Structure formats: C-alpha cells, structure tokens
C-alpha cells in the first residue's frame, strides 16, 4: 500500500521510506520532521496511539518497533526505514483481542481510556522484557542475569512507570498485568 502523507513542499527536506505497520508494508513519502506518532495517526488513520505530551513524558504514544516498546512521539519516522511497527490496532488476531487487551477488560483497568493503548502496548513490551530476563530498578540485584524475572507488584509499578494515567487507574492496571504473569 502506498500513502503520500504529510508531504512538505520543500525539496531536499522529504524522504521516501518503507514501514511495516501491523503486518502491512507502506511506501511513504514524508517531511523529514514527522514523528512516527503523527504518521500513524494523521497519515495512516491509526488513532489508537495517543498524543499526551509529545515529549516522552507520558507514554500515551507507546508502540512496538521491531518488537520493543518505545515512545513514538520522539521517533523521527525517516530514521525508521524498514522497521516493523505494531500499534494497539495490530495486537489482536483478526477480530480477536490480544491477551493483554482481555486482561485490561477483565480487570476494568481504565477509566477514560486515553492512556490505555499506551498502557497495553507497554505491557506487551514488559512481558517480553521480563521473560527475557531484562532487569528493572525493582529487580533483586542477585537475580541471575538472563533468567525470567517474576512480575511482582513492585516490578509492575516500576516497569510501567513510563505510562502515566491521569484517571489513576493504576491499581486495576497492576492487577491486570499480574493476571498475565
């Protein structure tokens, strides 16, 4: 699929690139200044990822790039040529929900829902990081390197600290993530 999105008028300040978003390749011609978050929302109509602060301070824009959770507001799309991006829209199979989405529903882990897509993508990243033995500030220093890290309440709170929730749905978010671990 191709989409000429957010093109600038100035020659020399645009670039062509390929991005694989939720399994589909897009050929894009973009102003060099455009952040991944804006490509997703404005260019591709994937409005699940939210813009909270636009400065890396809230986590509402969290998506997975090549399987790792990142803040899409601080990534220039032009630098991601060839990358694989997964947004909240691309987590489930077909119409089915991803287990993390199910857990958030089961635990009522949101109120207004604005931070939720970021919380969910971040949680997908957290589960993978913990399984691969990535430590956090809450991990026992004696925990053997590379061994899966059990997700206690403290671990979940620390690992998700980059996702703010203005509604304060934190207790239910922690419960949802604990159900998954």
């Amino acid at each position, binding site marked *: 699929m191709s989409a000429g999105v957010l093109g*600038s008028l*100035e020659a*020399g*300040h645009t*670039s062509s690139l390929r991005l694989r978003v939720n399994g589909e390749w897009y050929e894009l011609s973009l*102003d*060099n*200044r455009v*952040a991944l978050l804006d490509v997703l929302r404005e260019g591709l109509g994937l409005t699940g990822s939210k813009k909270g602060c*636009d*400065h*890396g301070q809230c*986590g509402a824009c*969290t998506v997975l790039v090549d399987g*790792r*959770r*990142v*803040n899409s507001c*601080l*990534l*220039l799309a*032009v*630098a991601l*040529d060839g990358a694989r991006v997964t947004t909240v829209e691309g987590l489930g199979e077909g119409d089915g929900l991803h287990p993390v989405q199910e857990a958030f529903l089961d635990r009522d882990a949101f109120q207004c829902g604005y931070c939720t897509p970021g919380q969910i993508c*971040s949680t997908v*990243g*957290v589960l993978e*990081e913990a399984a*691969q*033995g*990535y*430590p*956090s*500030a809450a*991990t026992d*220093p004696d925990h053997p*390197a*590379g061994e899966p890290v059990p997700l206690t309440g403290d671990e979940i*709170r*620390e*690992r*998700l*600290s*980059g*996702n703010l929730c203005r509604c304060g749905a934190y207790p239910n978010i922690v419960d949802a993530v604990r159900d998954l671990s």
Partner: protein
Amino acid sequence: MRTFTYVRAADAAEAARAHGGRDGSRYLAGGTNLVDLMKQGVETPDTLVDITRLPLDTVAEEADGALRIGALVRNSDLAAHPAVRVRHPAVSEALLAGASGQLRNAATTGGNLLQRTRCVYFQDLSMPCNKREPGTGCAAREGVHRDHAVLGHSPACVATHPSDLAVALAAADAEVQTTGPAGERVIPVAEFHRLPGELPERDTVLEPGEIITAVRLPAPLDGTRSTYRKVRDRASYAFALVSVAAQLTQRGDGAAEQVRIAFGGLAPRPWRARRAETELTGQALTEERVTAALDAELAAAEPLRDNVFKIGLARDLARTVLLGLTRP
C-alpha cells in the same frame, strides 16, 4: 520545527563527512533528547546525520577484562548485559534509575552522555539563557533553581548535567573513545563534561563533528563492590535531585584499598569526590571518618538560594551508601 536535510550514514567516516563539523549539523542517535529539543525550537539543525546504522551496537570484552561498550548500545540492553550487572552493578543500577522502559529502549550510550541540561529556562525560548543563547543572561540564578548546581557552576550558568549513567561511569574510571577531525581520542568520563566558566554553551570537550564511538569500562579490582543511589521527587521516572555512585575495594583487615565516589545532581558534570576519596583510602570506613571526609569534600559547595538542602542530602546519601558497601 525547522526543516532539515536527512542523511543516513553507514560508518563513522561517512557520518563525519556528512556532518562536516558545521554549526547546523547534528548526529541523530536514539533521538529521545535531540528530537524533543528540536520540537521545542531549542535545537534547529539544518542537517541531521543518522548514526543509528553504524556498527557500534555491541559490548565486547577486552583481554584485560575491560568492557568496550559501543556508542549505540541501547540503555536497556546495557543495563541487562550480564557482565555489566555482575561486575559493574552501579552502572546497571544507574541506567535502570533513569527515564522509563520505553525511553531506555531507544536511548543510546553516547546520546545519554551528551543529553542537554533539564534546566527549565534552557527549554523555554522566551527566557534568557546563556547556554542556549550566549550573552542573554541566566534566568535560573535568581529564578527557579531548586534542581540546580551547588558545585562547579559559574556566574554564567548554574545548570546540572542530568545523566545518571555518566555518574556511574565516572566512579568506575570509564573512558570515552571518540573519532574526529583530530583523529581518535580517549577522554576520561570524569573530564568529558566541561565546567561552564564563560562558555556555558559548550557542555563537553567534544570538538564539532567528533563522534563518540565507545565507552571503555575498566575491569574492577577483585572483590570490588559498587552501587548507585538516586534521590528524586517521585519513586520512578524522574531526574535526580542528588545521586551518588560509589565503588569500594576492602583489604583483608576491612580498610579501604580503593574507594571512588561520584555525585550526580550537584554540578555541571559528574562530581568525583577526589578529596574524600584521598582521605578515606587506606582507612577503615567508620561513620565519623566518612562523615568528616564528605563534609570536607562538600565544604567547597556554593549553594543557590533554594538548593542548600542538596549539600546535607548529598552527604547523608553518600555516607549511607559507603557504609552499606562495607557490609556484605
């Protein structure tokens, strides 16, 4: 944001050529600081040289046990690296005490050392700031400066350097390896950031166009213990008010064979407490001796109106950390 030309470099030589040492050129690594500052109009490059595809993303062990950390190794991967966790816990802990999981997945080793100050006036184009716009004045000196420096500052600028990683690396006697117009250089991390003096716009000793290629972390002496502690306004996802990295090697009789202390949050660069280190080397680390050595170190502090608290906080934090390292 101002428009810019984008160049993707395959190796350091190509990156240096594209950069050309020009004022308007910037290297792009993880982008978590640079892109933020470009959005705010603080950074206005006309050319962005993307270095993320340079082959500098691995940690290699050298023959003497030192670790050579590529400049593009991501903060999360470095914190998780088994050799770093086991031999340099302070480095792993410092990384994990910084930013968030998402940011650490993007942020790089080189970019972390080169991040700019978090002084609010530096990011606010409507305010005077000598670091952002030389000669305009310093809004922080008489303004909001609770987070600012108590050591090493100058009339021109009272900002601190915000990196947690740099503090742990300074305590470990790590070195920055670079390549640039003058060839390859090795710079101790503790001397990599400049004190502002009359030139607060220059954060580090890097020359225009010079690239960080790696950080070399020397092997600690046998039996060395190290740790990093950070005090901040909330438990996670916040910059340091004060932090300390300490590394201690004890002799059989318990006296300190080698002790290294670096403070974060106090100065425009990681503050190696050399005076306290000298006073404590060869001594048993008793509470009184440690307190006296830290007081002597911090006697040079010149706090601002609203950050006097940092001095006592730094002393108490470092004392707790050092005494903690004496106990297995």
